[in-house]
């Protein structure tokens, strides 16, 4: 039995989503664009899912544009909204699905400012506001960072952006299901979301925006998603996504509370039994499920692999395509040295993790960390 402490990478698909998807696969193969009974049944499933996704975030269904995931959602927003001459303020802690499009846009004449975080991985509202220019079209800030879990001050930023009429986009992929997001009360203009980070399947996500018409489609074709995203709907994925959102909505605050209890149990056990450990983050401003730790003098890659062989999945820095681990650019942006970044691991708990699994992980860490420290860094 594997112990999955890598929920920020992906989550197991929740039973409700599996059931809903299986039903959709077997009983609703129709094309939602068809006028036939099969089509209308599939269409009904898609619209029900849209309501569920919107419901979790206190958004309206019309604000939900299904995409293949958060990468497509971020790309759609950035390439759709920005034109040469525009200015965008972003951060140094964005996911590659934001930073890579921004790089490309910068090469096309979009001015890009990327604000650095503090040592805890948070960007300051003032630092963002100070970067504003008359041409500032967009502020793009990750709601909570995937590696550290650091929560960014999106509500405060939203107000400052609203005052100036600047569009605020937040990649909320990691925040959804772990924080209570209320888009009815937070004047953020758009967010990106991905189903497989909250118990849904891979290959489906959404761009959720207050004014969808302001964002042209990235994919044009048969006019699906009210002309906002061409391509036959991924009905099964959408259904699974909706089911996962419905489960998260039903659990409400109990989910983050349970995650926090697990995460804090892990942290308590680690600090009690292992010395020279530092939390790469401010506990008061971190997702309840995430624990990014530096184990001084430990090669994180070796610890990750040793844990994996013990049946425990965690994550370290940025893996290149070959699978080798490189120092995390996020931790480097936070001012960590390459050595410190290389000594850091991310633990991210999720639904289904048991307290005794946490205790087993603590136990294994207490054995492995001193052993790997004794090896020294290559």
């Amino acid at each position, binding site marked *: 039995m594997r112990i999955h402490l890598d929920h920020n990478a992906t989550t197991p698909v929740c039973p409700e989503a599996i059931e809903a998807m299986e039903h959709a696969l077997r009983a609703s193969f129709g094309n939602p664009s068809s006028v036939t009974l099969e089509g209308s049944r599939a269409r009904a499933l898609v619209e029900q899912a849209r309501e569920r996704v919107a419901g979790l975030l206190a958004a309206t269904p019309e604000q939900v544009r299904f995409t293949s995931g958060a990468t497509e959602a971020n790309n759609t927003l950035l390439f759709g909204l920005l034109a040469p001459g525009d200015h965008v303020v972003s951060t140094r802690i964005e996911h590659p699905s934001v930073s890579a499009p921004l790089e490309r846009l910068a090469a096309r004449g979009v001015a890009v400012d990327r604000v650095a975080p503090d040592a805890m991985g948070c960007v300051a509202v003032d630092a963002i506001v100070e970067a504003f220019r008359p041409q500032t079209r967009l502020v793009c800030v990750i709601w909570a960072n995937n590696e550290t879990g650091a929560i960014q001050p999106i509500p405060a930023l939203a107000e400052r952006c609203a005052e100036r009429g600047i569009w605020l986009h937040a990649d909320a992929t990691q925040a959804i299901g772990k924080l209570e997001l209320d888009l009815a009360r937070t004047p953020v203009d758009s967010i990106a979301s991905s189903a497989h980070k909250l118990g849904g399947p891979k290959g489906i996500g959404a761009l959720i925006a207050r004014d969808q018409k302001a964002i042209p489609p990235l994919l044009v074709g048969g006019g699906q998603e009210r002309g906002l995203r061409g391509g036959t709907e991924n009905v099964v994925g959408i259904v699974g996504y909706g089911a996962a959102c419905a489960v998260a909505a039903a659990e409400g605050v109990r989910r983050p509370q349970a995650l926090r209890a697990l995460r804090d149990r892990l942290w308590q056990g680690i600090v009690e039994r292992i010395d020279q450990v530092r939390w790469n983050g401010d506990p008061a401003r971190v997702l309840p499920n995430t624990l990014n730790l530096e184990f001084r003098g430990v090669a994180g890659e070796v*610890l990750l692999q040793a844990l994996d062989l013990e049946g425990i999945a965690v994550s370290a820095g940025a893996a290149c395509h070959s699978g080798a681990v490189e120092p995390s650019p996020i931790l480097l942006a936070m001012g960590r040295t390459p050595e410190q970044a290389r000594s850091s691991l991310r633990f991210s708990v999720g639904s289904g993790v048991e307290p005794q699994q946490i205790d087993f992980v603590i136990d294994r860490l207490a054995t*492995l960390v001193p052993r790997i420290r004794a*090896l020294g860094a290559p």
Partner: protein
Amino acid sequence: MGGVETEGGRSLDRRTGAGAGERVVVAMSGGVDSSLAAALVVRSGAEAIGITMKLSASGSRCCSLEDADDARRVAERLGIRFFVANYAEGFTREVVDAFADAYLAGRTPIPCIPCNQRFKFDHLLERAKAFGADRVATGHYARLEREPASGRVRLFRARHREKDQTYFLFSLRPTQLERAAFPIGDMSKDEVREQARLLGLVTADKAESQEICFVPDGDYAKVVESIRPEAAEAEGPIVDERGRVLGRHRGIHRFTVGQRHGLGIASDRRLYVVRLEPERRRVVVGEASDLDCRGARVEHVNWIGGEAPRAPIRARVQVRHRHRSVPAEIRADGTGGARVEFDEPVRAVAPGQAAVFYDEERDEEVIGGGFLAAGWR
């Protein structure tokens, strides 16, 4: 196929020295040899963990992607766990930079030797310990024999001499050899490929890489110049033994003792590089007979048995990878080096290359070896 030897009542696999169920890390390069080594570890009943060592950070490409992917596919086929170990920084510092510096100092280095000693059988062995594994297996063609009584490990040439790689393994310490395994050391290349084919390994017919892994097209001068750009500007004279200038060269890193081609001088005699003088940036050339050495000083000698012999010993000595060893007398000098007197002159003793000592009678067992410092006529 794998007979077993017993040690304290335990059954150990002849090829790997590992007990059933024991964890063994296999260094998998993505080639056929290490692929089959992994398969043989699996067959022995041990739990194999495949690791590809990422040794290069060159260019925009992550590392040798296809090779790591091949190794991963073999591991999947064998049903074993697989990881990539990132050693790019250390390897650049300890092996690649040292390689360039050796050339600039007029030596002809063999980077595979420090790579084996410090990466495969030091860093990787250390990682194996963290994984609860006691042993590292590689796809080298070499053989180990364990003496049950003393626990001593002896190192022998591959059964098929043309593939033998002990020339690159002589520097392993006894503690490293104890925990090494060379599962394919008694097989021929054809057998290795045949078995790999039977097992359906994607690497079975993969072309062999003879080059130094970080010198892809064999142009080591270019590699040296990219690491130490000043090398490209260090031109100097080509002289004969009497100091007469015969031409100019574009850096002594482009030359190795015994080299005949690429001198760029017209002469009615066949000229060879006989010596490199880095301080004066001189390449000294002479005739074939000037290359003959009656002896050589060897430094950083490793004795496989662990201790240097007190009295002079007889052995066969090999001074290049593709060199037929010659009988010689070896005298340890008490400071970690040795003096070697060849029975008959040896051609082209290149400083930086290895001198590896084998038993005189059969030329099979590695007694020790070191790095050539200087030869004498």
